[in-house]
Protein backbone atom coordinates (compact mmCIF):
# COMPACT_ATOMS: atom_id res chain seq x y z
CA UNK A 1 0.00 0.00 0.00
CA UNK A 2 1.31 3.45 -0.94
CA UNK A 3 -0.87 6.41 -0.07
CA UNK A 4 -0.63 9.32 -2.46
CA UNK A 5 -2.42 12.50 -3.37
CA UNK A 6 -2.94 14.17 -6.72
CA UNK A 7 -3.86 17.86 -6.89
CA UNK A 8 -5.22 19.44 -10.03
CA UNK A 9 -3.51 22.78 -10.61
CA UNK A 10 -5.97 23.50 -13.43
CA UNK A 11 -8.94 23.30 -11.10
CA UNK A 12 -7.55 24.80 -7.91
CA UNK A 13 -8.73 28.38 -7.43
CA UNK A 14 -6.67 29.07 -4.30
CA UNK A 15 -9.66 29.51 -2.00
CA UNK A 16 -7.75 28.12 1.04
CA UNK A 17 -10.65 25.93 2.14
CA UNK A 18 -8.21 23.03 2.45
CA UNK A 19 -6.01 25.11 4.74
CA UNK A 20 -8.87 25.97 7.08
CA UNK A 21 -10.29 22.43 7.00
CA UNK A 22 -6.91 21.01 8.02
CA UNK A 23 -6.45 23.55 10.79
CA UNK A 24 -9.87 22.67 12.19
CA UNK A 25 -9.61 18.90 11.78
CA UNK A 26 -6.14 18.66 13.25
CA UNK A 27 -6.25 21.39 15.91
CA UNK A 28 -3.37 23.22 14.26
CA UNK A 29 -2.32 26.09 16.56
CA UNK A 30 -3.30 29.58 15.46
CA UNK A 31 -0.66 31.16 13.24
CA UNK A 32 0.53 27.82 11.86
CA UNK A 33 -0.50 25.67 8.92
CA UNK A 34 0.12 22.16 7.67
CA UNK A 35 -0.99 22.95 4.14
CA UNK A 36 -0.86 26.21 2.26
CA UNK A 37 -1.52 27.83 -1.10
CA UNK A 38 1.23 28.81 -3.51
CA UNK A 39 0.64 30.93 -6.57
CA UNK A 40 3.27 30.98 -9.30
CA UNK A 41 3.05 33.60 -12.02
CA UNK A 42 5.28 32.95 -14.95
CA UNK A 43 6.07 34.62 -18.26
CA UNK A 44 6.29 38.04 -19.88
CA UNK A 45 3.44 40.48 -19.64
CA UNK A 46 0.84 40.15 -21.14
CA UNK A 47 1.58 36.48 -21.78
CA UNK A 48 1.33 35.38 -18.18
CA UNK A 49 0.61 31.94 -16.89
CA UNK A 50 -0.56 31.26 -13.40
CA UNK A 51 -0.40 28.05 -11.44
CA UNK A 52 -2.12 27.61 -8.11
CA UNK A 53 -1.10 24.76 -5.86
CA UNK A 54 -2.25 23.52 -2.50
CA UNK A 55 0.99 22.30 -0.91
CA UNK A 56 1.77 20.10 2.08
CA UNK A 57 4.26 17.46 3.17
CA UNK A 58 4.93 15.23 0.17
CA UNK A 59 5.26 12.06 2.24
CA UNK A 60 8.46 11.40 0.37
CA UNK A 61 9.51 7.86 -0.38
CA UNK A 62 13.14 8.83 0.22
CA UNK A 63 12.49 11.29 3.02
CA UNK A 64 15.46 13.32 4.27
CA UNK A 65 13.49 14.18 7.41
CA UNK A 66 13.28 10.51 8.37
CA UNK A 67 16.93 9.97 7.52
CA UNK A 68 18.28 12.76 9.69
CA UNK A 69 16.03 12.30 12.73
CA UNK A 70 18.30 11.21 15.60
CA UNK A 71 15.64 9.45 17.64
CA UNK A 72 13.48 7.76 15.05
CA UNK A 73 10.56 10.06 15.95
CA UNK A 74 10.14 10.81 12.25
CA UNK A 75 9.29 7.53 10.59
CA UNK A 76 7.41 5.80 7.79
CA UNK A 77 3.97 4.64 8.81
CA UNK A 78 1.45 2.40 7.03
CA UNK A 79 1.20 3.16 3.35
CA UNK A 80 4.46 5.14 3.30
CA UNK A 81 3.03 8.15 5.12
CA UNK A 82 5.70 10.03 7.05
CA UNK A 83 4.69 10.75 10.65
CA UNK A 84 6.26 12.14 13.82
CA UNK A 85 5.88 10.33 17.16
CA UNK A 86 5.49 13.29 19.49
CA UNK A 87 6.84 11.64 22.63
CA UNK A 88 10.03 10.58 20.84
CA UNK A 89 10.73 13.99 19.31
CA UNK A 90 13.34 16.09 21.13
CA UNK A 91 12.68 19.18 19.03
CA UNK A 92 16.20 19.36 17.62
CA UNK A 93 14.97 20.83 14.35
CA UNK A 94 17.12 18.61 12.13
CA UNK A 95 14.09 17.39 10.20
CA UNK A 96 12.82 20.95 9.72
CA UNK A 97 16.17 21.94 8.22
CA UNK A 98 16.23 18.82 6.06
CA UNK A 99 12.92 19.25 4.27
CA UNK A 100 13.40 20.95 0.89
CA UNK A 101 9.71 21.94 0.94
CA UNK A 102 9.76 23.45 4.44
CA UNK A 103 6.69 21.37 5.17
CA UNK A 104 7.38 20.95 8.90
CA UNK A 105 7.01 23.35 11.75
CA UNK A 106 7.89 23.43 15.40
CA UNK A 107 4.66 23.06 17.38
CA UNK A 108 4.40 25.53 20.31
CA UNK A 109 4.34 22.47 22.61
CA UNK A 110 7.88 21.64 21.51
CA UNK A 111 7.59 18.70 19.15
CA UNK A 112 7.63 18.88 15.38
CA UNK A 113 4.39 18.66 13.48
CA UNK A 114 3.23 18.47 9.89
CA UNK A 115 0.65 16.95 7.54
CA UNK A 116 -0.30 13.38 8.46
CA UNK A 117 -2.56 12.66 5.46
CA UNK A 118 -5.16 12.49 8.31
CA UNK A 119 -4.06 8.87 8.59
CA UNK A 120 -5.39 7.99 12.03
CA UNK A 121 -8.25 10.40 12.35
CA UNK A 122 -9.83 9.90 8.91
CA UNK A 123 -8.10 7.61 6.41
CA UNK A 124 -8.09 4.56 8.66
CA UNK A 125 -11.85 5.05 9.08
CA UNK A 126 -12.27 4.94 5.32
CA UNK A 127 -12.65 8.70 4.84
CA UNK A 128 -10.57 11.03 2.68
CA UNK A 129 -8.17 13.51 4.34
CA UNK A 130 -9.92 16.71 5.47
CA UNK A 131 -8.44 18.87 2.70
CA UNK A 132 -9.53 16.43 -0.03
CA UNK A 133 -13.05 16.07 1.25
CA UNK A 134 -13.68 19.79 1.67
CA UNK A 135 -12.32 21.11 -1.65
CA UNK A 136 -15.19 22.95 -3.42
CA UNK A 137 -13.70 22.36 -6.88
CA UNK A 138 -12.95 18.69 -6.10
CA UNK A 139 -9.41 19.21 -7.32
CA UNK A 140 -7.75 16.67 -5.00
CA UNK A 141 -7.59 12.90 -5.27
CA UNK A 142 -6.39 10.57 -2.56
CA UNK A 143 -5.80 6.84 -2.47
CA UNK A 144 -3.50 3.89 -2.84
CA UNK A 145 -1.02 3.91 -5.73
CA UNK A 146 -0.81 0.12 -5.60
CA UNK A 147 -4.53 -0.15 -6.31
CA UNK A 148 -5.01 0.56 -10.04
CA UNK A 149 -8.65 1.47 -9.44
CA UNK A 150 -8.08 4.09 -6.76
CA UNK A 151 -8.98 7.69 -7.62
CA UNK A 152 -5.37 8.74 -7.50
CA UNK A 153 -4.06 5.90 -9.70
CA UNK A 154 -6.74 6.55 -12.31
CA UNK A 155 -6.23 10.27 -12.55
CA UNK A 156 -2.43 9.88 -12.72
CA UNK A 157 -2.89 7.48 -15.64
CA UNK A 158 -5.11 9.91 -17.50
CA UNK A 159 -3.42 13.23 -16.89
CA UNK A 160 0.00 14.80 -17.20
CA UNK A 161 1.57 15.41 -13.82
CA UNK A 162 4.69 16.60 -12.05
CA UNK A 163 6.16 16.43 -8.57
CA UNK A 164 7.90 19.28 -6.76
CA UNK A 165 11.72 19.50 -6.95
CA UNK A 166 12.20 15.95 -8.24
CA UNK A 167 15.92 16.79 -8.48
CA UNK A 168 16.09 16.83 -4.67
CA UNK A 169 15.74 13.06 -4.90
CA UNK A 170 12.96 12.83 -2.33
CA UNK A 171 10.45 10.87 -4.49
CA UNK A 172 7.33 12.78 -3.42
CA UNK A 173 3.95 11.10 -3.02
CA UNK A 174 2.01 14.27 -3.73
CA UNK A 175 1.49 14.77 -7.46
CA UNK A 176 0.42 17.91 -9.26
CA UNK A 177 -1.76 17.54 -12.36
CA UNK A 178 -0.70 20.05 -15.01
Amino acid sequence: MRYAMAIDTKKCVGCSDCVVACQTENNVPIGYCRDWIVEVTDGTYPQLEIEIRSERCNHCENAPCVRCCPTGASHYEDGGTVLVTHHKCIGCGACIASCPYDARYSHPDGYVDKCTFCLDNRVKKGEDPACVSVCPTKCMYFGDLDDPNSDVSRVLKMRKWKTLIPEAGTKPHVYYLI
Partner: protein
Amino acid sequence: MKEEIITSGRMNPYIDPHLNIWHWQIPLYLFLGGLAAGILFFAALYTIQGKQDKYRTAVKIAPFITPFILIIGLIALFWDLKHKLYFWQLYTTIRFESPMSWGAWTLMVVTPLSFIWCALNIKVIFPDWDWKFQWVKEVEAFFRRNILVISWILLIFSLILGVYTGILFSAFNARPLWNTSILGPLFLASGLSAGAAAIVLLSKDHFERVQMAKIDLIIIAVELFLIIHMFMGFLASTQVQIDAANLFLGGPYTTPFWLFVVMLGMVFPAILEILELRGYKMPHYIAPILVMFGSLMLRFIIAYAGQESRWLY
Protein backbone atom coordinates in the same frame (compact mmCIF):
# COMPACT_ATOMS: atom_id res chain seq x y z
CA MET B 1 11.46 40.44 -19.19
CA LYS B 2 10.47 36.89 -18.35
CA GLU B 3 9.68 36.65 -14.71
CA GLU B 4 8.53 34.13 -12.20
CA ILE B 5 6.74 35.36 -9.11
CA ILE B 6 6.03 32.91 -6.33
CA THR B 7 3.58 33.89 -3.62
CA SER B 8 3.01 31.60 -0.70
CA GLY B 9 0.27 31.72 1.89
CA ARG B 10 2.47 29.97 4.43
CA MET B 11 3.78 31.98 7.36
CA ASN B 12 4.95 29.43 9.91
CA PRO B 13 7.22 30.70 12.70
CA TYR B 14 10.90 29.64 12.27
CA ILE B 15 10.20 28.67 8.64
CA ASP B 16 9.04 31.73 6.77
CA PRO B 17 10.12 33.87 5.03
CA HIS B 18 13.15 31.65 5.30
CA LEU B 19 14.29 28.95 7.68
CA ASN B 20 15.56 30.24 11.04
CA ILE B 21 15.17 27.26 13.32
CA TRP B 22 18.78 27.27 14.57
CA HIS B 23 20.13 30.28 16.41
CA TRP B 24 23.39 31.06 18.23
CA GLN B 25 23.34 27.84 20.26
CA ILE B 26 24.11 25.51 17.37
CA PRO B 27 27.13 27.38 15.92
CA LEU B 28 28.48 27.91 19.45
CA TYR B 29 28.07 24.20 20.16
CA LEU B 30 29.82 23.33 16.91
CA PHE B 31 32.68 25.73 17.64
CA LEU B 32 33.21 24.39 21.15
CA GLY B 33 33.00 20.81 19.88
CA GLY B 34 35.58 21.59 17.19
CA LEU B 35 37.88 23.40 19.63
CA ALA B 36 37.76 20.52 22.11
CA ALA B 37 38.34 18.05 19.29
CA GLY B 38 41.40 20.04 18.19
CA ILE B 39 42.95 20.23 21.67
CA LEU B 40 42.31 16.56 22.45
CA PHE B 41 43.63 15.50 19.06
CA PHE B 42 47.02 17.09 19.71
CA ALA B 43 47.11 15.74 23.28
CA ALA B 44 46.49 12.22 22.04
CA LEU B 45 48.83 12.56 19.07
CA TYR B 46 51.84 13.69 21.11
CA THR B 47 51.17 11.03 23.72
CA ILE B 48 51.17 8.34 21.06
CA GLN B 49 54.40 9.77 19.66
CA GLY B 50 55.93 9.82 23.15
CA LYS B 51 56.51 13.58 23.05
CA GLN B 52 54.70 14.41 26.30
CA ASP B 53 57.65 16.38 27.62
CA LYS B 54 58.34 18.39 24.50
CA TYR B 55 54.66 19.35 24.20
CA ARG B 56 53.78 19.68 27.84
CA THR B 57 51.01 22.25 27.40
CA ALA B 58 49.41 20.36 24.54
CA VAL B 59 49.37 17.07 26.44
CA LYS B 60 48.99 18.08 30.06
CA ILE B 61 47.57 21.57 30.38
CA ALA B 62 45.36 22.58 27.44
CA PRO B 63 43.13 19.47 27.81
CA PHE B 64 41.98 20.86 31.17
CA ILE B 65 39.67 23.29 29.41
CA THR B 66 38.03 20.61 27.27
CA PRO B 67 35.58 19.15 29.84
CA PHE B 68 34.31 22.68 30.49
CA ILE B 69 33.87 23.63 26.87
CA LEU B 70 32.29 20.28 26.02
CA ILE B 71 29.79 20.73 28.81
CA ILE B 72 29.04 24.31 27.81
CA GLY B 73 28.56 22.99 24.27
CA LEU B 74 26.14 20.32 25.47
CA ILE B 75 24.23 22.92 27.48
CA ALA B 76 23.98 25.08 24.36
CA LEU B 77 22.68 22.09 22.38
CA PHE B 78 20.18 21.29 25.12
CA TRP B 79 19.10 24.93 25.24
CA ASP B 80 18.28 24.80 21.56
CA LEU B 81 16.05 21.73 21.83
CA LYS B 82 12.39 22.63 21.76
CA HIS B 83 11.09 19.45 23.43
CA LYS B 84 13.66 19.40 26.21
CA LEU B 85 12.09 16.88 28.58
CA TYR B 86 12.48 14.20 25.94
CA PHE B 87 16.22 14.81 25.57
CA TRP B 88 17.01 11.29 26.75
CA GLN B 89 15.37 9.87 23.62
CA LEU B 90 18.60 10.84 21.88
CA TYR B 91 20.38 8.13 23.82
CA THR B 92 17.86 5.35 23.36
CA THR B 93 19.05 4.56 19.85
CA ILE B 94 21.94 5.04 17.43
CA ARG B 95 21.01 6.01 13.90
CA PHE B 96 24.03 6.12 11.63
CA GLU B 97 22.10 7.88 8.89
CA SER B 98 21.55 10.81 11.21
CA PRO B 99 24.65 12.91 12.01
CA MET B 100 22.75 14.43 14.95
CA SER B 101 22.52 10.91 16.40
CA TRP B 102 26.07 9.61 15.95
CA GLY B 103 27.43 13.05 16.80
CA ALA B 104 25.59 13.00 20.12
CA TRP B 105 27.06 9.56 20.79
CA THR B 106 30.54 10.73 19.83
CA LEU B 107 30.21 13.43 22.46
CA MET B 108 29.24 10.75 24.95
CA VAL B 109 32.56 9.05 24.23
CA VAL B 110 34.75 12.15 24.07
CA THR B 111 33.40 13.95 27.14
CA PRO B 112 34.17 11.15 29.66
CA LEU B 113 37.56 10.64 27.99
CA SER B 114 38.33 14.33 28.48
CA PHE B 115 37.54 13.94 32.19
CA ILE B 116 39.77 10.88 32.46
CA TRP B 117 42.55 12.74 30.67
CA CYS B 118 42.33 15.60 33.17
CA ALA B 119 42.23 13.21 36.12
CA LEU B 120 45.43 11.57 34.92
CA ASN B 121 47.16 14.95 34.72
CA ILE B 122 45.63 16.56 37.77
CA LYS B 123 48.97 16.67 39.60
CA VAL B 124 50.34 19.00 36.92
CA ILE B 125 47.83 21.62 38.00
CA PHE B 126 47.43 20.67 41.68
CA PRO B 127 50.76 19.10 42.76
CA ASP B 128 49.41 18.08 46.18
CA TRP B 129 46.35 16.31 44.84
CA ASP B 130 45.48 13.06 46.55
CA TRP B 131 42.75 10.71 45.33
CA LYS B 132 42.02 9.67 48.94
CA PHE B 133 40.31 6.36 48.19
CA GLN B 134 42.27 3.29 47.31
CA TRP B 135 39.87 2.17 44.59
CA VAL B 136 40.16 5.54 42.79
CA LYS B 137 43.91 5.12 42.85
CA GLU B 138 43.54 1.67 41.34
CA VAL B 139 41.27 2.97 38.59
CA GLU B 140 43.76 5.74 37.91
CA ALA B 141 46.61 3.24 37.74
CA PHE B 142 44.57 1.14 35.30
CA PHE B 143 44.03 4.12 32.99
CA ARG B 144 47.68 5.09 33.29
CA ARG B 145 48.79 1.62 32.23
CA ASN B 146 46.49 1.84 29.22
CA ILE B 147 47.26 5.41 28.27
CA LEU B 148 48.22 4.41 24.73
CA VAL B 149 44.90 2.68 24.15
CA ILE B 150 43.07 5.70 25.53
CA SER B 151 45.14 7.99 23.32
CA TRP B 152 44.28 6.03 20.20
CA ILE B 153 40.57 6.04 21.05
CA LEU B 154 40.76 9.75 21.77
CA LEU B 155 42.65 10.45 18.56
CA ILE B 156 40.04 8.69 16.45
CA PHE B 157 37.02 10.07 18.27
CA SER B 158 38.36 13.62 18.31
CA LEU B 159 38.70 13.42 14.53
CA ILE B 160 35.16 12.07 14.26
CA LEU B 161 33.92 14.88 16.52
CA GLY B 162 35.74 17.50 14.45
CA VAL B 163 34.41 16.21 11.17
CA TYR B 164 30.90 15.76 12.60
CA THR B 165 30.62 19.48 13.32
CA GLY B 166 30.68 20.00 9.55
CA ILE B 167 28.79 16.90 8.44
CA LEU B 168 25.88 17.94 10.62
CA PHE B 169 25.29 20.71 8.09
CA SER B 170 26.41 18.99 4.91
CA ALA B 171 23.86 16.18 5.34
CA PHE B 172 21.02 18.55 4.45
CA ASN B 173 20.40 18.63 0.74
CA ALA B 174 17.50 20.98 1.40
CA ARG B 175 19.99 23.81 2.08
CA PRO B 176 22.23 24.11 -0.98
CA LEU B 177 24.93 26.09 0.88
CA TRP B 178 25.37 23.31 3.43
CA ASN B 179 25.10 20.50 0.94
CA THR B 180 28.80 20.20 0.16
CA SER B 181 31.05 17.47 1.49
CA ILE B 182 33.80 20.11 1.88
CA LEU B 183 32.17 21.29 5.12
CA GLY B 184 33.29 18.14 6.99
CA PRO B 185 37.03 18.60 6.32
CA LEU B 186 36.74 22.40 6.50
CA PHE B 187 35.20 22.36 9.98
CA LEU B 188 37.65 19.68 11.08
CA ALA B 189 40.55 21.85 9.89
CA SER B 190 39.03 24.88 11.56
CA GLY B 191 38.67 22.94 14.84
CA LEU B 192 42.27 21.69 14.68
CA SER B 193 43.45 25.21 13.95
CA ALA B 194 41.50 26.58 16.91
CA GLY B 195 42.93 23.79 19.08
CA ALA B 196 46.49 24.59 18.01
CA ALA B 197 45.79 28.27 18.68
CA ALA B 198 44.55 27.49 22.19
CA ILE B 199 47.78 25.61 22.88
CA VAL B 200 49.89 28.54 21.62
CA LEU B 201 47.86 30.82 23.86
CA LEU B 202 48.38 28.69 26.97
CA SER B 203 51.96 27.58 26.41
CA LYS B 204 54.85 29.31 28.11
CA ASP B 205 57.45 27.25 26.30
CA HIS B 206 59.02 28.91 23.28
CA PHE B 207 59.76 25.68 21.38
CA GLU B 208 56.20 24.41 21.79
CA ARG B 209 54.72 27.74 20.75
CA VAL B 210 56.84 27.86 17.61
CA GLN B 211 55.96 24.26 16.67
CA MET B 212 52.24 24.78 17.21
CA ALA B 213 52.32 28.05 15.28
CA LYS B 214 53.95 26.20 12.36
CA ILE B 215 51.25 23.52 12.47
CA ASP B 216 48.60 26.22 12.62
CA LEU B 217 50.08 27.83 9.51
CA ILE B 218 49.80 24.58 7.58
CA ILE B 219 46.21 24.08 8.72
CA ILE B 220 45.30 27.65 7.72
CA ALA B 221 46.71 26.97 4.26
CA VAL B 222 44.58 23.83 4.04
CA GLU B 223 41.51 25.81 5.14
CA LEU B 224 42.07 28.47 2.49
CA PHE B 225 42.46 25.75 -0.11
CA LEU B 226 39.22 24.10 1.03
CA ILE B 227 37.33 27.40 0.93
CA ILE B 228 38.45 28.13 -2.62
CA HIS B 229 37.62 24.57 -3.55
CA MET B 230 34.17 24.91 -2.00
CA PHE B 231 33.35 28.00 -4.04
CA MET B 232 34.69 26.43 -7.23
CA GLY B 233 32.40 23.48 -6.57
CA PHE B 234 29.38 25.69 -5.96
CA LEU B 235 29.96 27.83 -9.03
CA ALA B 236 30.31 24.77 -11.25
CA SER B 237 27.13 23.24 -9.85
CA THR B 238 23.38 23.80 -10.24
CA GLN B 239 21.59 27.15 -10.02
CA VAL B 240 20.63 26.66 -6.37
CA GLN B 241 24.27 26.18 -5.40
CA ILE B 242 25.37 29.12 -7.53
CA ASP B 243 22.77 31.18 -5.65
CA ALA B 244 24.15 29.82 -2.38
CA ALA B 245 27.70 30.85 -3.31
CA ASN B 246 26.41 34.28 -4.28
CA LEU B 247 25.37 34.88 -0.67
CA PHE B 248 29.14 35.26 -0.16
CA LEU B 249 30.07 36.72 -3.52
CA GLY B 250 28.21 40.01 -3.47
CA GLY B 251 25.28 38.90 -1.31
CA PRO B 252 24.54 39.82 2.32
CA TYR B 253 27.26 37.60 3.80
CA THR B 254 30.10 38.87 1.62
CA THR B 255 31.65 41.30 4.11
CA PRO B 256 31.24 39.23 7.27
CA PHE B 257 32.64 36.11 5.61
CA TRP B 258 35.63 37.54 3.76
CA LEU B 259 36.48 40.08 6.45
CA PHE B 260 35.92 38.16 9.69
CA VAL B 261 36.53 34.57 8.65
CA VAL B 262 39.07 34.78 5.85
CA MET B 263 41.00 38.00 6.51
CA LEU B 264 40.85 38.41 10.30
CA GLY B 265 40.53 34.70 11.10
CA MET B 266 43.04 33.22 8.66
CA VAL B 267 45.16 35.53 6.50
CA PHE B 268 46.03 38.13 9.13
CA PRO B 269 46.97 35.67 11.91
CA ALA B 270 48.95 33.67 9.34
CA ILE B 271 50.95 36.80 8.47
CA LEU B 272 51.50 37.52 12.17
CA GLU B 273 52.68 33.97 12.75
CA ILE B 274 55.08 34.13 9.80
CA LEU B 275 56.50 37.43 11.08
CA GLU B 276 56.88 35.96 14.55
CA LEU B 277 58.65 32.88 13.19
CA ARG B 278 61.00 35.24 11.38
CA GLY B 279 61.93 36.78 14.68
CA TYR B 280 59.77 39.90 14.84
CA LYS B 281 58.71 40.61 18.41
CA MET B 282 55.00 41.01 19.02
CA PRO B 283 52.45 39.95 21.63
CA HIS B 284 52.06 36.21 21.03
CA TYR B 285 48.38 36.11 21.96
CA ILE B 286 47.04 38.16 19.04
CA ALA B 287 47.32 35.52 16.32
CA PRO B 288 45.75 32.63 18.30
CA ILE B 289 42.87 34.78 19.53
CA LEU B 290 42.15 35.84 15.95
CA VAL B 291 42.28 32.22 14.78
CA MET B 292 39.73 31.20 17.41
CA PHE B 293 37.54 34.17 16.56
CA GLY B 294 37.65 33.19 12.87
CA SER B 295 36.73 29.62 13.69
CA LEU B 296 33.72 30.81 15.71
CA MET B 297 32.63 33.21 12.98
CA LEU B 298 32.92 30.49 10.34
CA ARG B 299 30.35 28.42 12.22
CA PHE B 300 28.04 31.35 12.81
CA ILE B 301 28.11 32.55 9.23
CA ILE B 302 27.69 29.11 7.68
CA ALA B 303 24.85 28.32 10.11
CA TYR B 304 22.93 31.51 9.39
CA ALA B 305 23.66 31.78 5.65
CA GLY B 306 22.79 28.11 5.14
CA GLN B 307 19.33 28.69 6.55
CA GLU B 308 18.79 31.38 3.96
CA SER B 309 19.81 29.20 1.05
CA ARG B 310 17.01 27.13 -0.42
CA TRP B 311 15.34 25.57 -3.40
CA LEU B 312 12.85 27.75 -5.19
CA TYR B 313 10.07 25.89 -6.94
